[in-house]
């Protein structure tokens, strides 16, 4: 199943092989190619480059082409203020400044940045036949607000007929924009109407519903699909929105996904959302993002759900945070790992691993979900099991199933984040990848060599020559020094002539030579009794 098929099927509430993932890349595309949002949103070339980069990094099933709700407003005479890291903002409202509504014309396909957007859709269609393309249009209520300013709300009482006239005009603009984008090759028209979150359901039904319904009916008549996007606190209107005949409703983190699911699925409308944009995608850690994604996936479920951020991705969203979403979407084991980790969340206490891996033997730890139920885990365990005997007892291996709390603690203590992972002497060595036999053998051998080197480096000692100053003692000393010189080592040589010391060292006849071997086992730490026992066994 291609990404496009997956998105279109999910839109129609049909069965899919997995939940589709659609990152809304608007001005974020600019940051991916080190451009400003203002340069980006005004350049066909930069937008294509940014979107291609996003597709490469995030492997999406669908993307939004352009995410800028000011395109129509700009053509209709609103002034824009451009920003480096945001879409532009509307700073003047022509109808408030005396322009007559009757003088406004529905924009043509070449006005302002409409032509540019159409060209980007065409180019993306050509390059990515298998990815669903969303063409975004400004919803009529939001466009009305751009044109008239916040006076709109007061006019709803003072002059409702005027608001209806204005909505009529804005709907004509929306119809034209949908047609332009469908012709250019967009698969889905997203009617983005965030300002509807500001009104209640009665006013929504009065001032928005008839117009939105007309827009979605037109989209259907062109054999295309329509999604109704809203952001902000719009829970009160979800039901009314779903009655406007959209194929899909997309919401942000301000509305509970299960609520949207309840309302939408009953009416055969699919739904999407609602990864947390700022707190998680922009400012959170990869773990925060994974958890949030899992939560959305688990709530959304396999029917009629599309995973997406709630709105336009913030410009500076770290790409890593979006790549981990991709991983969670694509890899079922990754999802189970995160779920398991979440269940055992209370095991916060970490083990002190600073002494780990200093034993005689090399320890290979395989951290798995459970090798019996997770295929990649099973293969990884088998690969280790197969090579361990080659080392004839020097290598010891263990499996840690993180479904057990102590294994999870062990995993977090070793800073392991992915499943399955191989650690050699506590060092993360293979992550989510089954190493080929040779590579694994080599990695273990490397560790054995390292340990040997360490042991040699750590060993120091002294040579004691025991005697009471006789001639033979001098001869022994001479030989020892000669031997050390020939070996090129600088082990200290000490003459012991105190007879009471002879007995301590178990010597009854001189001259005698005692070699003392010292090995540093720990420094600046307090080794545990268990660890000391291991050392003592060595003696």
């Amino acid at each position, binding site marked *: 199943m291609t990404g496009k098929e997956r998105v279109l099927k999910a839109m129609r509430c049909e069965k899919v092989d997995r939940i589709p993932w659609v990152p809304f890349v608007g001005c974020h595309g600019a940051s991916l190619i080190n451009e400003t949002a203002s340069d980006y949103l005004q350049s066909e070339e930069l937008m294509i480059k940014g979107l291609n980069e996003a597709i490469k990094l995030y492997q999406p099933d669908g993307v939004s082409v352009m995410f800028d709700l000011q395109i129509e407003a700009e053509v209709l005479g609103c002034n824009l203020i451009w920003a480096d890291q945001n879409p532009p903002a509307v*700073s003047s409202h022509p109808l408030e400044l005396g322009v007559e509504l009757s003088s406004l014309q529905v924009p043509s396909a070449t006005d302002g940045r409409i032509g540019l957007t159409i060209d980007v859709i065409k180019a993306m269609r050509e390059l990515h036949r298998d990815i669903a393309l969303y063409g975004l249009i400004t919803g009529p209520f*939001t466009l009305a*607000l751009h044109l008239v*300013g*916040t006076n709109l709300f007061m006019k*709803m*009482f003072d002059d409702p007929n005027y608001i209806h006239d204005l909505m009529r005009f804005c709907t004509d603009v929306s119809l034209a924009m949908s047609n332009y984008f469908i012709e250019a090759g967009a698969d889905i028209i997203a009617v983005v109407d*965030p300002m509807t979150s500001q009104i209640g359901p009665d006013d929504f039904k009065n001032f928005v519903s008839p117009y939105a319904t007309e827009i979605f009916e037109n989209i259907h008549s062109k054999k295309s699909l329509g999604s109704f996007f809203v952001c902000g606190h719009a829970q009160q209107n979800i039901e009314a929105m779903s009655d406007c005949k959209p194929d899909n409703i997309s919401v942000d983190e301000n509305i509970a996904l299960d609520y949207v699911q309840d309302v939408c699925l009953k009416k055969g409308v699919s739904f999407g959302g609602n990864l947390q*944009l700022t707190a998680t995608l922009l*400012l959170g850690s990869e773990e925060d993002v994974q958890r949030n994604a899992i939560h959305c996936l688990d709530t959304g479920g396999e029917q009629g759900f599309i995973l997406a951020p709630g709105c336009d991705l913030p410009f500076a969203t770290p790409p890593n945070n979006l790549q981990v979403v991709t991983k969670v979407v694509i890899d079922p084991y990754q999802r189970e790992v995160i779920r398991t980790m979440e269940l055992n969340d209370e095991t916060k206490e970490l083990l002190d691993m600073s002494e780990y891996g200093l034993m005689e033997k090399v320890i290979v730890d395989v951290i798995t979900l459970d090798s019996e139920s997770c295929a990649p885990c099973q293969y990884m365990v088998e690969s280790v099991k197969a090579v361990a005997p080659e080392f004839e007892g020097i290598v010891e291996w263990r499996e840690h199933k993180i479904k057990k709390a102590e294994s999870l603690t062990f995993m977090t203590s070793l800073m392991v984040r992915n499943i399955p992972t191989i650690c050699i002497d506590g060092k993360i060595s293979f992550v989510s990848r089954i190493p080929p036999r040779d590579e694994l053998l080599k990695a273990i051998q490397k560790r054995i060599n390292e340990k040997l080197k360490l042991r040699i480096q750590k060993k120091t000692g002294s040579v004691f020559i025991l005697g009471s100053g006789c001639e033979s003692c001098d001869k022994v000393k001479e030989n020892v020094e000669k031997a050390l010189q020939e070996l090129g080592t600088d082990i200290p040589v000490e003459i012991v002539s105190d007879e009471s010391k002879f007995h301590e060292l178990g010597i009854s006849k001189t001259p005698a030579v005692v070699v003392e071997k010292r090995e540093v086992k720990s420094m600046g730490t307090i080794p545990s009794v268990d660890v000391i026992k291991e050392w003592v066994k060595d003696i």
Partner: protein
Amino acid sequence: MNPIPIILITGYLGSGKTTLLNHLLSLPEIKTKNIALIINEFGTLGVDGALVESGDFAKFELNKGSLFCICIKTDFIKTLENITNEVRPELVIIEATGVAETSDLQDFLTVPTLLNRFFIQANICLADAKNLIKVLPFLKAAKSQIVWADGIIINKSDLVSKKELEDIQQLVKTLNPEAPVEITSYGKISHEFVNNIRHRQLSGTSIESPPEALFSLSFQNLNPIEHEKFLSLLNIYKENILRLKGIINFENEPLFVEVIHGKYLEKSLKETKNLRVGFSVIAWKTDKEKLKNAIESLW
């Protein structure tokens, strides 16, 4: 580092937030402080920003006119981070947009980079005596800004009748019984009023609790109605209908009619630009369906 106090000013467009801001900035108790201002009004760049009198303070303008709460949120957080790291003021004053949810602004302060760096000292909502009742039933934020306020200023009181002012006071009290209310014109309030406001930490659900104090209805029926019947209905509901405005097709001729807090006005259409039949009603203290049915029975 001690957390920096924030005074938050909310209120619908035109309620006098900038005037209040200028007034606050002129008060000796505030003037002498090292202040940072954050201004964020929907689509009025160069108006509010320029209207703020110049002075010795750092001024930040958020991504104005942005419709996505998320863009505002990102900018808001970035601006506050900037303020903590570079300006380190003794006080931050935020002028919020008329469509901002107070609860969102408070939530923004809980992201890890801002946590414990700021605290809301007072959240003041300006209510425009002349227009509040017209906006309240339509714009969710207008209501929630009042509900969440720690102190409410009913501004432009000189522009309305005594009856209107009483109704507004009563309405504000219904929505928010806790917050002290000050009635004024031109945003003139004492420093004492600001100083005595205590911030209340509300949870997200409290917004749902106040009863639907106010509702709106609109009618587009072109058929004629009897003048007498209409007037007697107004009389029955005189305590309930706060505002009514529009054109009604009476049996003899269509007329422009308006009710403003008990005051009835009717005009011939020659005096008005709007010629389409239809009217809106804003009412309270009665059942919405009941009033709707009563009006519809006129036809």
